[in-house]
């Protein structure tokens, strides 16, 4: 057929050339990784029982690299589990109409439950599941990290499934893709970018729970897993501040290393899944990804794996086509709805009845009132934390965000700060508190803020750097005085980002309260009045009723705060203050 002559576009000729040195680097890196994994898996299967379990780990600095590697393995195991959970749960919620009505509110509630509250309940269960091996304890720790990562990632994947561009959905249905093919060729790629970013954020948050779960006392037993968090706990108990500092340094190295070697190449690679027609203004770059792209090894490994795609597609066709029938009998649908609603109602009613009965028989319902009062104290701390963090970090964040040079230096630092587990710094702060004699009721606010305030800073920086240039130029042109500049330009513009940061900071503060309201150093324990201390004490004593009451009350506070305050703010910010 007659056609106009076409020429290759510029992008098509721009692929990087292959390089043998890149091959060498990739090979060495992969070999080192394999060796590490083999070594770690070997040592995870040493025989172990509850009575003879070591209550703490050695504080020998030579053991530190091994402990750090064990902790890292736990983090990645939890990430893998979170990913699988995300795929299954979010797909079920997005595709099954009835299930969605239950799964999404359930996820909302799960997200508000304090994670360390989960831990006390699940540890005994996991140990019973794996008698005779340390695997039970490992699983409990991995589960704690999993619960800190999975809900966020699931929400983001569900959101991207539900807001898929309609034409891509129609095209895939007309092309008659099977469910398996549609998931791997449409659903996952279209949700990849938010998933990767959420994974990165959640991974950073997971360090906190990893270190909190590696050494704890449950049911009057002290447990310690070989890991960097247990190392810090042991060093803190022994009063060896220099070892704590050493662990802090190693942790920083680990956080930065994972960032450079894993997350940055992943986010840079995920750019290929951007659905908008044009490229992002500032595409993330990564040295690791560049090295991998210049090497031949990924391609040579990928080729035989690529041959498997077709037979797997055929095998997975059993899941059926990614279609739904157009005609459904409305009577059958309504009956199905009724049955489903009835079953759910019975389950929820029975569960509530059993929980209330358990609480009434073990500690009495009056305990709920007591817990509510304690919760009020912790709530007060969270509020003070948010106010102080806002007053302090919003101006700093705005200054950093408006200065591109400063923000380029500051962004990685703040990212590390946000993922650095605050409980590493607890021994240092505890020493200071003991020295100055300040009560933990006040000092606890500082401890809680060590993890939570960075989210406000982080988001405000992002919001300030996204203020459109023409608005700033107009303000300069009008020569706005400081007060007006803040009130009419900056604060409204960063309001949406601030709200996002505030929600995350509040959630982090509640979680931190469980470890911040009781701290100990070198045998001295400081306690504050509050719900976090209540839950911690109940966990150590193994008092199931109190644990349940404390966890439920804290969840109620978080959910109430979310619905009554943060959701409203978010709606206002979307309606009045969004820049799009």
């Amino acid at each position, binding site marked *: *057929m*007659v*056609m*106009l002559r*076409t020429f*290759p*576009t*510029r*992008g*098509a000729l721009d692929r990087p050339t292959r390089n043998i040195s890149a091959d060498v680097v990739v090979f060495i890196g992969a070999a080192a990784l394999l060796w590490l994994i083999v070594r770690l898996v070997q040592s995870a299967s040493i025989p172990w029982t509850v009575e003879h379990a070591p209550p703490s780990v050695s504080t020998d600095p030579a053991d530190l690299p091994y402990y750090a590697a064990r902790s890292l393995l736990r983090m990645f195991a939890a990430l893998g589990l979170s990913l699988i959970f995300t795929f299954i749960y979010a797909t079920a919620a997005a595709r099954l109409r009835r299930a969605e009505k239950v799964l999404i509110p359930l996820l909302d509630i799960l997200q508000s439950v304090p994670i360390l509250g989960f831990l006390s309940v699940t540890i005994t269960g996991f140990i019973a599941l794996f008698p005779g091996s340390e695997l039970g304890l490992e699983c409990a720790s991995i589960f704690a990290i999993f619960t800190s990562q999975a809900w966020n990632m699931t929400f983001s994947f569900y959101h991207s499934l539900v807001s898929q*561009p309609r*034409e*891509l959905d*129609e*095209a895939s*249905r*007309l*092309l*008659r*893709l*099977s469910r398996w*093919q549609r998931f791997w*060729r*449409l659903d996952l*790629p279209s949700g990849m970018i938010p998933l990767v970013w959420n994974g990165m954020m959640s991974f950073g948050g997971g360090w906190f729970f990893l270190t909190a779960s590696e050494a704890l006392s449950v049911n009057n037993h002290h447990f310690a897993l070989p890991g960097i968090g247990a190392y810090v706990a042991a060093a803190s108990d022994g009063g060896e501040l220099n070892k704590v500092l050493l662990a802090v340094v190693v942790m920083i190295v680990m956080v930065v290393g994972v960032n450079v070697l894993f997350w940055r190449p992943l986010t840079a690679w995920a750019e*290929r*899944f*951007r*659905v908008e*027609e*044009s*490229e992002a203004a500032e595409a993330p770059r990564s040295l690791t990804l560049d090295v991998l792209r210049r090497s031949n090894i990924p391609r040579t490994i990928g080729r035989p794996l690529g041959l498997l795609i*077709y037979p797997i*597609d*055929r095998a997975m*066709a059993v899941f059926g*086509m990614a*279609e*739904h*029938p*157009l*005609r459904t009998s409305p009577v059958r649908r309504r009956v199905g709805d009724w049955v489903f609603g009835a079953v759910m109602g019975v389950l929820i009613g029975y569960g509530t009845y059993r929980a209330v009965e358990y609480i009434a028989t073990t500690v009495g319902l009056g305990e709920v009132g007591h817990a509510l009062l304690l919760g009020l104290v912790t709530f007060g701390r969270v509020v003070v934390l948010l106010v102080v963090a806002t007053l302090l970090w919003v101006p700093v964040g705005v200054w950093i965000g408006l200065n591109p040079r400063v923000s380029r230096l500051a962004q990685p630092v703040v990212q590390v700060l946000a993922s650095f587990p605050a409980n590493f710094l607890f021994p240092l702060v505890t020493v200071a508190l003991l020295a100055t004699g300040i009560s933990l009721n006040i000092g606890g606010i500082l401890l809680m803020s060590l993890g939570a305030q960075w989210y406000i800073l982080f988001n405000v920086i992002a919001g300030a750097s996204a203020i459109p240039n023409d608005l700033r130029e107009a303000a300069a042109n009008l020569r706005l005085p400081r007060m007006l500049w803040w009130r009419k330009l900056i604060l409204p513009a960063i309001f949406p980002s601030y709200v996002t940061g505030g929600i995350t900071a509040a959630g982090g503060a509640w979680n931190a309260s469980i470890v911040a309201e009781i701290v100990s150093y070198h045998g001295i324990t400081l306690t504050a009045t509050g719900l976090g201390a209540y839950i911690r004490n109940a966990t150590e004593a193994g008092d199931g009723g109190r644990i349940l009451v404390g966890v439920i009350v804290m969840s109620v506070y978080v959910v109430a705060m979310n619905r009554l305050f943060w959701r409203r703010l978010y709606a206002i910010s979307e309606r*009045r203050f969004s820049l799009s």
Partner: protein
Amino acid sequence: MTVNDEVLINVDHVSKSFTGAVGDTLLVLDDINLDLRAGEIVALLGRSGSGKSTLLRTIAGLIGPTSGSVRYRGEELNGANPGAAMVFQTFALMPWLTVQDNVELGLAARGGVPADRTARALKAIDMIGLDGFESAYPKELSGGMRQRVGFARALVLEPDLLLMDEPFSALDVLTAENLRTELMALWAGENFPTRAICLVTHNIEEAVLLADRVIVLSANPGHIRAELRVELDRPRDRRSPAFAALVDKLYGLLTGVEPGVTEPEPTEATPTSRALPNATVGGLAGLVEIVYARGGSADIPDIAAELNFEIDDLLPLVDAAALLDMLYVSSGDLELTSVGKEFTAADIQTSKQIFATQVRTRAPLVRTICKALGASSDGSLRAGFFLDLLRRGFGPEDAQQQLDTAIDWGRYAELFDYDADTDQITADPAAGVVAPATV
């Protein structure tokens, strides 16, 4: 290709209604009967809101009709139409797959040997003129090339029926013309596997250029207004008198009143019986000025061609001008009325007053708002009240659109003001809206 009697698609008494969040039902398609035969190209032409995309999707099997049936070769559809392939307005390519992977996607879904799939995909890419771009990503291609990939993806499956949803409207004029010509060349050739084409368009010239049959759809609710046969020989000449006559006739069908349907007079209609067209004051005034500059009368197809306006840009302005009695519309021609002449010739303040008078008497929704404000205690009402009123007759987006237009006209005419924070419409005291005996 010659038309034979083989019926590929039979649309039988199809109606489609959507239920809104508050339980209101919106009838989008009303009793559509249509046959698609092998060997013909059918164009579905209509303004936005006439249900043409919904109808195309019922034929494709993506949406199920509320009543009636769609049959492909005699079998009722209960899912995606196995014999149809679709080309989309926004191309709908997977951005993370190369051109070859995108084209092979449908073949991969059907199974088959990989080598065979690759061969067929390469052949389709060659046929559509993208040879050499197999490993390019959609981001690296221009709009016209992306649509070619869309065509290749559809044609590689050798479908009986090719469905196109405004395939050229996202492309610039020259690329669109190029692709249209190539499509017609493929259709006329022997190797074209597709037996029939059905396309949705809102470009009248495109419909006459491509189709054997043009089906005109009207909105509220969507139904078939008329069917036109285009018996011109291909390749068709835009400048031939027969072509121009058909275009004129279609403009007349789209702007005129349907015989047998009486529309209430603007001075007496209620907001739900006569919709407010989606026109800004600036666009409306500009159209009236253009007619004034041409000496008081103009031909709609001429204006559309000169301004390069689609019917969805131009016809709402024509409707608004007719509603406010500034232009008189008859069979595709526009004539300036005395009010229109006064409006154009006056200065800003006087023209605002003329506009205010017209809008208050002839725009049903604005009239209702003014009356309600007059009847209220403090001259102020929630905008949501009028939105609920409109929701009784229109879908949620349509209702919001009409309310926004009414507020825009009311603000320009200085009849009332709107506060987005409190969602209140407040009468302007100087306008005399809140006076005991108005209008």
